[in-house]
């Protein structure tokens, strides 16, 4: 069985700030990690490898430093990895990203299952997984937190809904987006991690020509949506600080609540 896992390297925490002068994101001093939902997808893939004997290939689109994320994935147990890296890919929205990933998967060729994290903690869109599925004409199930079985050309999964979950049977090949489940992702093994950082690691780097796309179809040029502006959220309330003893502040607060007909 062949599994492809789509991952993204993201800033280590969401506490990024905008530079007040340029309006650009300040990325210095922020660690890069594998996106948490993608880590869960990797864990799922490697568990399937252990139970069913699958081959796991990890794919990411990113700048050159994203190779660290791939090394980590191989350290966790993935068999090989591909970094899609090209200046032309930069500035892509989810349309262009899903197209680029889709073309790369077509070049990989054989696969039975594609796993992706539900959403990335920087973009927060949850769009790339389903868009890749549609591009490749694959059935999809999103918000998967448990894979029950894989057999006879089907995968049976549990899908989270707001008020419970569905058990769904989906024919293969398919794409699943994964959310956190009962099993936490494993840490990479040191020996595997070291060999994954070695020059002979099973990591390939592909650019636009390698996947047969033109610059107009990818990156910023290939995007349908454009960012018009970014800004830090503003707060309009000018808070009134109530001071004094507990009895005093409570009295004043109740006055104000009454005035505004809240109680």
């Amino acid at each position, binding site marked *: 069985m062949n599994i492809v896992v789509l991952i993204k390297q993201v800033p280590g925490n969401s506490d990024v700030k905008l530079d007040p002068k340029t309006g650009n994101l300040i990325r210095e001093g922020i660690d890069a990690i594998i996106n948490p939902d993608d880590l869960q997808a990797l864990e799922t893939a490697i568990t399937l490898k252990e139970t069913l004997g699958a081959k796991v290939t990890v794919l990411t689109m990113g700048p050159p430093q994203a190779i660290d994320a791939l090394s980590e994935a191989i350290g966790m147990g993935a068999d090989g990895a591909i970094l899609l890296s090209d200046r032309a890919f930069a500035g892509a929205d989810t349309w262009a990203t899903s197209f680029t990933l889709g073309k790369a998967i077509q070049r990989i060729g054989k696969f039975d299952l594609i796993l992706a994290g539900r959403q990335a903690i920087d973009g927060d869109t949850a769009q790339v997984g389903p868009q890749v599925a549609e591009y490749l004409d694959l059935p999809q199930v999103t918000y998967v937190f448990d894979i029950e079985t894989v057999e006879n050309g089907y995968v049976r999964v549990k899908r989270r809904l707001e008020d419970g979950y569905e058990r769904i049977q989906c024919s293969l090949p398919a794409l699943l987006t994964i959310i956190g489940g009962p099993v936490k992702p494993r840490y990479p093994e040191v020996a595997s991690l070291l060999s994954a950082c070695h020059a002979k690691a099973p990591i390939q780097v592909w650019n636009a*020509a390698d996947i047969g796309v033109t610059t107009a179809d990818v990156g910023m040029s290939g995007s*349908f949506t454009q960012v018009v502006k970014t800004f830090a959220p503003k707060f309009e309330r000018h808070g009134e600080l109530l001071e004094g003893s507990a009895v005093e502040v409570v009295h004043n607060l109740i006055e104000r609540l009454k005035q505004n007909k809240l109680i």
Partner: protein
Amino acid sequence: MAVWVEIDLCDGCRRCKRECPYDAIEIKDGKAQIGDRCTCCGACLEVCHHKAIHTDIQPKTIPDFSEYKGIWVFAEQRGGNLTRVSVELLGKAQELAKQLNEEVSAVLVGHHVADLADTLIQFGADLVYLADGEIFGNYRSEPYSYVLDELIKAYKPSILLMGATHIGRDLAPRVSRRTGSGLTADCTELSIDREEGILLQTRPAFGGNVMATIANRFSRPQMATVRPGVMEVVPTPGKEGVVITHESKVTEDQVRTKILEFVKEESPHVDLSKAKIIVAGGRGVNDLEGFGLLHELASALGAEIAGTRVAVEAGWISAANQVGQTGVTVRPELYVACGVSGAIQHRAGMMDSRFIVAINKDPYAPIFKVADWGIVGDLFDVVPELTKGLKTSCEVMCD
């Protein structure tokens, strides 16, 4: 779209070959030749001294979208019940429609759901597109994206809005890919740009630390999923509308998923989005006993209980009561935040409350930035005092 060498003008100087990042140029018989690996990046064009390299690539122009009209709202329903966000979106759609001088339509897909059409009209729809069939009984990605694509191709809307629910976030990207249109996720604000007549979609990124305003100039419909609990419902009682029934061509053998069963999870939770007053607790509440004080306050106020992610992880409240970026978004009349620091991820879920009270020991806690009334103090003193004060004042009022 291509880049090629005019052989007569080429002198084989190799500048282009050196410049190409993709190894796409070969020199054969003293002339440059551009091969299959060309990505039309244009690097070679700039370095050729003889202007021997030509291209037919045009700068991107905005296509003519004058045929695309109307603001559509996907009316999500489950088990024959409309989700609240569908109605919220109809409210917003009415506002956008007025500015564009266009109509509001609802798209209703399901099995035996025709009677919901009237409700949709009473909340703002001028038209309802109805696709009713057994294949649409429970939501599945394929039949729903199939029929939405059919409707979009047939009726050409300018804008399509969906709630950013589990279903919406599964369906919208699939539809956007299928129809070839741009999609913006999880919007908290929508407006029309007067000059360009396009939809401006504002959404949080980086967990809410950054707001981005997005436009979709090069495709239609302009698609957006919208966060539930943000837009306002605008009832239009007595409104008349038209229902257009659509017969879909999708058949069961085209659908590759089967729902085996639905397991409802019985968590005794309240729909926080309907609460008028909410009392929320964070890290400062310390323990379950501390939360007990908040429950008493909530009782005195007739409020619902909620909390931050910290409170959920500590087991003081259930996940359904988490307010924030990864929890629910609420807009109550009054939000009382006790021992909540006010990290951006939590603020994202309650910032639009009409009035906010914050009680925190730390005068620099970011929660005070969004509070109407802030109390810098120990919640273990203030909260019981407040509960007492409310009970007394109620007794006074009720006498």
